[in-house]
Structure formats: structure tokens, C-alpha cells
């Protein structure tokens, strides 16, 4: 108890270099608004690693960590492709993963969308031309939206999701 009270009143040392929290919260609220309109209050995402270095996964995991906690804005990462609205694909598609990628996509209920996250998944990475890699996600799946970055930060991924849903609303496909 003593520890907790001391903790509350002790002077906090902060680096003061964090992206403005207000900015992040506003992005989150915009995300929530879009999710409500487009996906009926909840957007279920299945993440699929088709051959990335693991950085994009780390950033996606960070979205669920305390600083971001993206679930409060209506976005959840689901375990099964059968529960997902969106397939979020990271990394260039390797030859060894091609079958698993196609099967995962086939298991999704329609309508569904595919978003490529990171330069490699967008087909822009360093790996093009390698024997082990087929190319970006669009070589194998119909990609609806791309979020580039090496890897994109959690905030960039959130902004990407907003733009993706804006696009859906404009095209009237939802």
C-alpha cells in the first residue's frame, strides 16, 4: 500500500518525446467511428505472416499492448480466419508459405478484404528476385489496400485502417 501511494505522488520522469497522446486518441476515435459505420461496431482481423522478418508482427502485437489497446476502438485480432473480416498479411509471400496463405484466405467468409502491411507485403521490399519469394501479397491474393513501411508503426497501421475504411465507404462496397 505504501509503495502504491508513494508511486502515485512521486515525481514522474518523462522523456517528453512521446507522440502527442491527444493525437493518438483522436486517431483512435476516428478509427472507432469508421469501424462503427463500416463494420457494424467491430472489425475482426486475422493476421497472417507469409514470410516477413518478424518486425511487422511485433508492431501488430504492440497494438494490443497497454499504450495503444486498439480493442477499445472496436478492432480485434481473431484466432481463426473464419471469424475475420480482414486478412492482414505481412511479409513477402514465400514459396513455402504459398499454400498456407491460399488456404487461409479460402477459409474466410465473404465479403472479406485483404490488407498488405509492410514494404515486403506491398511488393516494395528488398526481397524481389529471390528464388524463395513469389513477391508481394498481391501475387497470390486480391489485395484491397496496402500499408507500407519498414515496418509501419502502430499509429501508421491505425491510420492505414482508417484510410482503408474511408476507401470502402467511398466505393460504396460495404
Amino acid at each position, binding site marked *: 500500500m505504501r*509503495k502504491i501511494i508513494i508511486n502515485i505522488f512521486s515525481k*514522474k*520522469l*518523462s*522523456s517528453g*518525446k*512521446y507522440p502527442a497522446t491527444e493525437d493518438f486518441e483522436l486517431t483512435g476515435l476516428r478509427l472507432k467511428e469508421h469501424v462503427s459505420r463500416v463494420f457494424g461496431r467491430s472489425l475482426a482481423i486475422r*493476421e*497472417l*505472416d*507469409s*514470410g*516477413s*522478418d*518478424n*518486425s*511487422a*508482427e*511485433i*508492431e*501488430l*502485437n*504492440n497494438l494490443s*499492448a*497497454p*499504450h495503444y489497446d486498439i480493442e477499445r476502438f472496436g478492432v480485434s*485480432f481473431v*484466432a*481463426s480466419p473464419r471469424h475475420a473480416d480482414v486478412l492482414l498479411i505481412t*511479409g*513477402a509471400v*514465400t*514459396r*513455402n*508459405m*504459398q*499454400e*498456407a496463405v*491460399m488456404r*487461409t484466405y479460402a477459409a474466410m467468409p465473404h465479403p472479406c478484404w485483404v490488407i498488405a502491411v509492410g514494404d*515486403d507485403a506491398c511488393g516494395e*521490399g*528488398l*526481397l524481389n*528476385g*529471390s*528464388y*524463395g*519469394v*513469389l513477391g508481394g501479397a498481391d501475387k497470390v491474393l486480391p489485395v484491397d489496400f496496402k500499408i507500407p513501411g*519498414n*515496418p509501419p*508503426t502502430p499509429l501508421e497501421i491505425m491510420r492505414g485502417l482508417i484510410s482503408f475504411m474511408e476507401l470502402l465507404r467511398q466505393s460504396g462496397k460495404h
Partner: protein
Amino acid sequence: MMDIVTTGLMTHLESKQIGSHFSKGKGGEYYLRVPDNGIVEAAGWLADRKDLALIGIWAVPSHAKDCLELYYAFELKHPSPALVMIAEVKNNQAPSVSKIFPAAINFERRTKDWYGLGFTGLPDTRRLLLHEAYPPDYHPMVDSNPEPLSSNLATTEYSFKEFGGEGLYQIPVGPVHAGIIEPGHFRFSVIGETIFNLELRLGYKHRGLNKLAAGKTIAEVNRLSESISGDESAVNACTFSLAVENIAGIDPPKRAWELRTVLLEMERLYSHLGDLAGMLVDVGYPIGASPFFILREEIMRWNAIFTGSRFLRGAIIPGGLSRDIEDGMLQQFKCFLNTFSRRVRRALSSVDESAWVIDRFETTGIVSPELVAPLSLSGPIARASGYDSDTRQLHTYGIYTGLKYMVPVKTSGDVLARFNVKAEEAISSIGIINETIARCAPGPIFSGFDLKSGQALAILEAPRGRNIHWLRVKNGTVEHWEVITASFCNWLAIEHAVINNILPDFPVINKSFNLSYAGNDL
């Protein structure tokens, strides 16, 4: 000049009438050229000296003759980092040393995949990194790129080890897992809840980095090295840079090494904090895990402040650093770390006070000390099983010689030991960063170099263990690049650690290792 092991080996080979030729490499490593009939003899002699680990086998096309040469690297203690035995391959067939050094199996399988080289006596001849999607007789390092696959997918099936008997059944998991995790296949054989056997199948992320690097410039391969494994970007860039610097025969300025050390330890810090959080999540203790997630995110934000990348990318380049870090910023970070280390300790004490967490961690997933040398384990996993070895101390590089820090070693080899080793390493990393910043003086951060041709080995301590790059450069471009991350050997330990544990404990055991799939598959 030579150490006892190398002289001893040469004397032994001489007594068997096997000639050998010694030379010293640019990275301080020793090369010993032996005829192909000397490989097994030499490996047998080295295996008798219990403390030697085989840290890598790779093949390189020979310059002089139109054939392949096999490189066998053994870790040495002072003064040389490694003894590399070179043997010419005749008739595309070499003897397997897997009966002498079990860690050799996967190295030989990998070499066989890439070059089509046969290993006499190799117990497991299945393909390792090339799956069914590749034509059966396709070998990327000798053949050109395969045709794009048609929509008819693979028809052949990989043969897993078979187990039979009453009450024994198999659970296949992966390659696509339920969480946000990298792909890999786990084949459990279980009796009730108890794991009887686990067979791993990795390689799903095989991107062909080695071949991709051939013919590329140093700068391009430096970027490529950062994508070996995202959370080991800095250490891979630094290992590659060290290999290049060894070839060029230069040493980066002092400030460059100081800032590199800060970045490398930041990488270790955020990696370990993530592992600690993950282990706590996997035993169902999110309140205990949250502080670690918060601490880790803060370090990742500092990464971005220092280098512009949350994964420390683009900072470390051959010759030094691509950009300087302001002293004011470093002082702020040092100030931040004061409270930070207190917060880490507080988060750790909340774990120590939870008896049930300790109960789940203790005696779970034991890696016995006898496995460490044969499987060539390294890093926190080996140190949690009583193996007191850290590349930073064993063959020190950069400014690590002058730093005082503790390398924690535990003996129980269970999840708790790995948790404690990683926790103490995180705290010791904070100490290293503090000390390094305190002695950081202004100065140049880059020294230019003129790169011609040559080859060199570089070994660094990554958060996961021993990280090896072997590089051959010709006229300033990369000719051959070999990468062996710590994960490649450490994955072998999981198959042993899970036996006789219950299946629901697998996630926490796996997380306590937290190995890289991408770093293994390359």
C-alpha cells in the same frame, strides 16, 4: 600465436599422416585446411575435448578449382574466436559429422538443400528449408530460379517421424498459428496431456537471403542483414559491419563503438522485456505482464528517437554509424533510465511475490546442461542451463572489454531460470548503457575504408545468443554471405525441453525461448 586446441589438432592429424595447412583469417579466426578424409578424424579429436562446440557448417564455391569447399567452424576461447576447418569436397559427397556433433544434422541438411551435396551417414535426409513447393532436385545455389508455381500445389507430403501405440495420438499445429506469431509447424505426439514427442518443421519463411546477397553492394547487403530477423536488426547489421571492417582491416572510431553498444544493449533490453511480458501472458498473468509491455514500448520509442526506426534500422553501417546521436539526447535518456531501472525492478518484484507464477515456471520445460554443447546452444537459453559463456566476454568486440557488467548464469534450466536470466540481463543492459553514455566523448562516428577482396568471420552476442556472419567480398561487392543466427541451433532445444510436460505448458515454454523463425529460415 596458435592456441592449444589448434596446435593439438595439427599434431594429432600429423600423427595420422594427414597433412593440414594453417592460416589466420582477417577476423582473427584460424583456418585449417584439411583433406576430405581428415574431416571425421579431426571432428572426432575435437569432440573428445568436451568444451568445444561446433557452431556452423557451410559450403563455399572454391575460387581456384571448380568445386565446393566445406567450412566447419568451432568456437574457441581466447585469442581467436573460431577454428574454421576447410575441406575440399570430392564427387559431391562428404562424410557427415552428425554422429560426432549432433548439431551438425541441420547444418548438413541445409547445405544439402542448397547445393545438392551428399553427406555419407547423415541420419536425416529430408529437406530442411526447401519444402514440397520446390522441385525435388532443385538446389538454389547451383541452379537458377525455379519456374513460378502453377496453381497445382504440392502433391508430395513431408514424412514426419511416426510413433505408434495405444493411447498415443498426434496433434499437428501450424504453420498458421492462432495468434500473431510467425509460421512454423509443430507435430506433437501426446499421451493424454503429456507430450511424448515434439517434432518441429520450420523453413516456411525461407526467403533465400544468402543467394540474394551474392553480387550486391555492401550497402544493399547491410540493409538485407537488418531483415534477417526484425527484432535483431541492430545486432545483425553490426555483425555484418564487423565482418566488412575485418576484411577492410579498419576499426571504427571510439564514439561509433560507444553508440553501437548503446543501440545493441537497447535491442537486448526491449527484446528481453518483451519475452518477460510474453511468459507472464502465457501463464495467464496479464497484470504482471502489462508493466513489461509498457517498459518495452518506451524503449522502442527511444529507439525511434535515436535512429528514426523503432527497430534501430539504418543506424549501424560498415565503418561506423550513419548518424550521430546528440549528447543532450543521450543525457536525457540516461536520466530516463534512472527511473526506468527502478520500474523494471518493481515489475519484477510483483512476479517474485506471486507464488503461483513461480509454481508454473519452476520445473517446466527443462533443458538439461548435457544438451548445451552437443546441440551448440547459446545465449540466455544456454546460460539458464549452467553454461557460462557470452560472446561479449569470450571474444570481446568493440568497447565491451572495458565495461563492467554481470552475465547471469542459472543452473536449473527451466522456464524460471530463463525468466531470471533474461530479467537480470535486462538490468545489466541498463547498467551497460548508463556506463557507456557516461564515458561517451565527442568525436567522429565514421571511418572510411577501401574494400577490395577478402573474407572474414564475425561473431557477436545477439539477444538470443551467438550470431555469426561469414563474408567473402570480391572487388567491393559481396560474393558469398553466410549467416548463422542463434535461433538455428537453439530451436533444437525445444524438442527436448517439452518432453514429459503437459501440452498447455507448451506456449510458455516456447515463449521462454522466444526464438526467431525468420532468423532460422533465412
